[in-house]
């Protein structure tokens, strides 16, 4: 046996490897991680774009399909970015595989960025496919495409952080599902994916401004169709602030090894 000590240590390699592993992980179960959300979004598109949508108008000058498609895209981005970090990290904690990572030279910034980038990739991939499928149902005006891309990236980054935080705090699968079913889902549905909040009666219209997801959804739609319930600057500012806050929170938890190292 030849065992020459190889002292070379490539500090960037743990990050690249963890990122690659996270991407491989969701590709390995692509039916569940990519195909299923695309099918779900396509069904929404069919229902709201080709059937009910023809009979609905919620925003002057736009078809219902044109209104709802940006919301459906960002919903796909949000759900899948969150699902990727939360399920991957929680499964590692739950099944004990996290120790494999804890004993390696992966640094906390590398840990966060690898998980985040993989989650963003999955979220943006699903969003992009939904966008392509939506071309069958409506043509979007694409007023500010770069700003739309920026909002999608902020949304995926933000929910990747939220997924990490949820995975660290969750005690079991049940707790984890609370984040999805009782926080994200209601906030998305009430955040203006399917209707402009301006059509809501008081006090629901005002209360909707307290929904943090409203700013992501409205900002993304605003960038695409050129109008929104609030100004783009406000939507962008609040979304970016939320992303920075959650990033700081996730970084603190992971840097400290909270619930990862005993």
């Amino acid at each position, binding site marked *: 046996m030849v065992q020459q000590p190889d002292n070379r240590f490539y*500090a960037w390699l743990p990050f690249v490897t963890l990122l690659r592993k996270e991407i491989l992980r969701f590709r390995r179960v692509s039916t569940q991680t990519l195909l299923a959300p695309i099918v779900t979004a396509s069904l929404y598109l069919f229902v709201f774009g080709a059937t009910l949508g023809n009979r609905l108008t919620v925003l002057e000058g736009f078809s219902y399909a044109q209104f709802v498609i940006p919301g459906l895209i960002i919903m796909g981005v949000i759900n899948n970015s969150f699902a990727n970090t939360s399920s991957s990290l929680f499964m590692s904690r739950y099944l004990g595989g996290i120790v494999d990572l*804890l004993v390696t030279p992966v640094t906390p910034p590398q840990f966060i960025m690898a998980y985040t980038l993989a989650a963003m990739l999955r979220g943006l991939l699903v969003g992009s496919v939904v966008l392509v499928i939506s071309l069958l149902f409506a043509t979007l005006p694409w007023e500010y495409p770069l700003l739309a891309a920026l909002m999608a990236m902020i949304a995926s980054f933000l929910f990747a952080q939220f997924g990490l935080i949820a995975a660290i705090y969750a005690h079991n699968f049940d707790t984890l599902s609370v984040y999805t079913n009782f926080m994200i889902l209601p906030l998305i549905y009430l955040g203006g994916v399917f209707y402009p909040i301006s059509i809501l009666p008081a006090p629901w219209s005002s209360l909707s401004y307290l929904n943090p997801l409203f700013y992501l959804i409205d900002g993304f739609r605003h960038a695409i169709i050129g109008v929104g319930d609030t100004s783009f600057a406000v939507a962008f500012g609040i979304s970016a602030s939320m992303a920075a806050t959650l990033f700081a929170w996730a970084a603190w938890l992971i840097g400290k090894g909270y619930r990862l190292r005993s």
Partner: protein
Amino acid sequence: MLLHKAETIDIVRTMNALEITDLYKEFAGIPAVKGLSFAIPEGEIFGLLGPNGAGKSTTINMVAGVVRIGRGQVQAFGYDNQKDYRYTRRLLGVVHQEIVIDNFFTIQQALEIHSGYYGVKDDPAWRNLLIDRLGLRPHLGKVMIKLSGGMKRRFMIAKALIHRPRLLILDEPTAGVDVELRHGLWEFVREINKKGTTILLTTHYLEEAEQMCDRIGIMHHGEMIALEPTHDLVRKLSNRRLKLWLEEPLAVLPAGLEAYAPNVEHGGAVLVLNLPAGANAGTMLKQLCQSGLNIRDFETDQSGLEEVFIQLTGMGGGNNGSAA
């Protein structure tokens, strides 16, 4: 720093593969490790033994970085495992007590991934050597969940060695594996030790520790209660027994043997004496013959690490030789 170029780790700057100083850890106010200090020179096979809850796994996990250090210092090859954790972890390989696998990947993929986690570029020659040496070749394409328990253990050893660590930590790697595999694994461990890898192991099987380890440390209630070369530890602390088959059964015990805890068996036909450490069996036999005992045959036996372990920890009865 997230990204920077390759660095060379200087591992020749110290003689000790591992140096633990005044290590302390408590969980919920209950101390698990109490001021532990010991060092393992490079190239040694060191056995860390102790009953359940002795603090062995906590110690190993603090060394590996899975458990935060409460107090004290751990150095691997001269690097502090808190300040220079990237270097110490690069130099360490850990086989965990629990089977830790990632069900998403095949053996081949997982080994490539693990090499990268340690900042080491994949070395196909070394990877293939591990695969062949540990008998993993026929299972390379299988996802982890489809591997047998023994195969998962083999994979865990390969995984811990894939980045060519200088110190391999084995936390009960043979728990629950069959005899054949155990022997194979220990043979492999000896082989890599001969090539220069330092070994720190805990095992359930005291006989294995006795055969494998250059030195043994015995932990109890979070403290090191013995730390000696294996042979010295067994010799110093164990008693030998002298068993004498007599021509005629004894009616009464000869006087002057009380210090040897004499015992008679088979209706007085066999006399058993305990020889303290350092006692000369030949001289004693001579004295017994001179005292009039007619000896037909005799044998001596020496208690092993198991007895030493029981003696030190007071863990007698019903533990079936289990040390951990």
